[in-house]
């Protein structure tokens, strides 16, 4: 099992990874972060709203399902938001350089990091 710091640093080994964070969805505050290239504090807080909005939409649609991950494609970056299933209220956040990243591998890396988290 990996600590928060170890998991986030491991994520940065993914091709194209720029920065990563573990975020408390209740307050939008980060439990840990690694890498640079983005104002992670702001991104963490903002993405909390993204997760909440998506969950509200799913609820109003009557979808009784769980979010595995949310992928946002920008012109130069990928942003992956992955709720930690074992710890509701916490999500992982990974930012990748689109030119260098392999999306499937990145999603896989997030899933692996989520599974190995211990805190």
């Amino acid at each position, binding site marked *: 099992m990996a600590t*928060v710091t170890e998991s986030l640093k491991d994520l940065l080994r993914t091709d194209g990874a720029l920065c990563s964070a573990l975020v*408390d969805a209740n307050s939008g*505050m980060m*439990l840990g972060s690694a890498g640079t290239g983005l104002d992670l504090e702001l991104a963490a*807080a903002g993405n909390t*709203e993204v997760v909440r909005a998506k969950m509200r939409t799913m609820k109003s649609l009557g979808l009784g399902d769980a979010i595995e991950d949310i992928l946002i494609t920008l012109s130069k970056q990928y942003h992956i938001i992955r709720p930690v299933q074992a710890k*509701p209220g916490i999500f992982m956040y990974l930012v990748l350089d689109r030119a260098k990243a392999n999306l499937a591998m990145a999603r896989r890396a997030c899933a692996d990091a989520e599974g190995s988290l211990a805190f």
Partner: protein
Amino acid sequence: MAVIDPNDNCVVIRVVYDGAPMAGKTTSVAALGRGFGSNVYSPQDYNGRTLYFDWLDYTGGLFEGRRIRCQIVSVPGQATLAPRRRRLLRSADVVVFVGDSSRAGFEADRHYLGALRGVLDEVSGPPVGIVFQANKRDVADATPLDQLHSMLDELDLRSAIVESIATEGTGIREAFVFAVRLALDRIRELMSSDSLKTGRPQVNNAAELLQELRLAEPGAQDLDQAIASNGLDATAVHQLQRPSSLASIALQEAMQSNIDALGNPPATAIKHSDAEIPALPDEKVPSGLVWPPVDGRTILLEIAQATVKLNRADDGGWYANVNNRWLLHSAQTAVFADADSGRAELVNWARLHVANGKFISKHRCIVLARDGHGRFRLWQVVRRENSLRTRIEVALKKDAAAIADTLVTAARAYLDMAARLALTTCALPLTADAIAVAASGPIYVGPLPMPSAALPVQSWSAAKASDALVSQLQFAQPTLQAHRKQVLAALTKLKDSDSHTRTEWQLLQKLFALTRD
């Protein structure tokens, strides 16, 4: 002191780091500052010891669309600065108590926690949450966690424990983020009662806090100089003779501190292979789904940190004994397809708790959480207390006098509880394992029925209650019969020495009968 600042569109909260001297408060705040890339400001310190406070200002996260601005303040730990410490604690929206895990620090932690409780009891409004940051976990003789839990129980403090090594920065961020979460729970309560103010914070920066403290403490600068020069003996005698002078107050508290120090002594979530087993609730449930909001979340953190084995009850519900401290229970009917219907029942259940608050134990919470199968489940967590049955079981291993004394005390409490249960708003079982004796009298310490399952109040006549107690004491009969002569003699002595009501006398007769074959 929480406030909504419309200028910056943020909610301002104060996180106060408390603890005994050298426990690691300043180190913790410094580690936080390094993590945030912000500087910590300490107006004055002496040989590394904080004289006023350490100040860290951090804005991050999001609450109801507003940024969260945290004024992070650590207090001075020295006994001579107790009034200053108290003033800072009274302004807290949440407290992170940094505890020294070494054996030597344990007693100091107990003393300071007791004082902290006294201060926070005076703060009006929703309760101020406490996170116990058990620091110095890397020392060889670190106090075990269960001992820390016991200490918190003895002090009647509901506090989550987060382990840390401040010098390495380990656990610091986790403790802080959890503290912010507790503070936000408090703010939601303030908002719901329209008590959250809007405006510029009363203290907006470290300089203003310093000024506020100095204005509140006449002679503060003299005291600072005295401490810094190690020359408290230079304080004028007439200042000590005035009881209200800062020097006098500080000296009294320093003396009391020495006397006291000498004399005083989450669900690890189950990775279920059985599709039926529900997921356990933990401290990260969204706000509004746990009651009471602050203390309940603290209880859930403790559950989440334990290894929990869920058992299926005969009635189809789920229960677990957590660390021999908590009973976790969910009824078979406590499952809901959506959060809204679950929340409606949660709110009604909370109302039931409040309506019966005088008759039930305090250490409990209720929570609505996802069950891991696409639905929502209501849980309740109740702290295990020293029930009448437990007391009797313990007494049965002692001498006849102890047995008799305990039986009589238990009988009185049981009859008293029977009368009290007539005043509740729903039927509660009258059983010896669900009644304990508190300072205010007997209380019900078992689980509360959900509102949808609540039955009308049952009234107990004294005779009926007596018969019920005697039938529940059958487990004690072999021991009572084995020591019949001695127990009878002890009971008779009690009967003669104490005055009893007619009801008690009749019950005593029935207890006598238990000793016969």
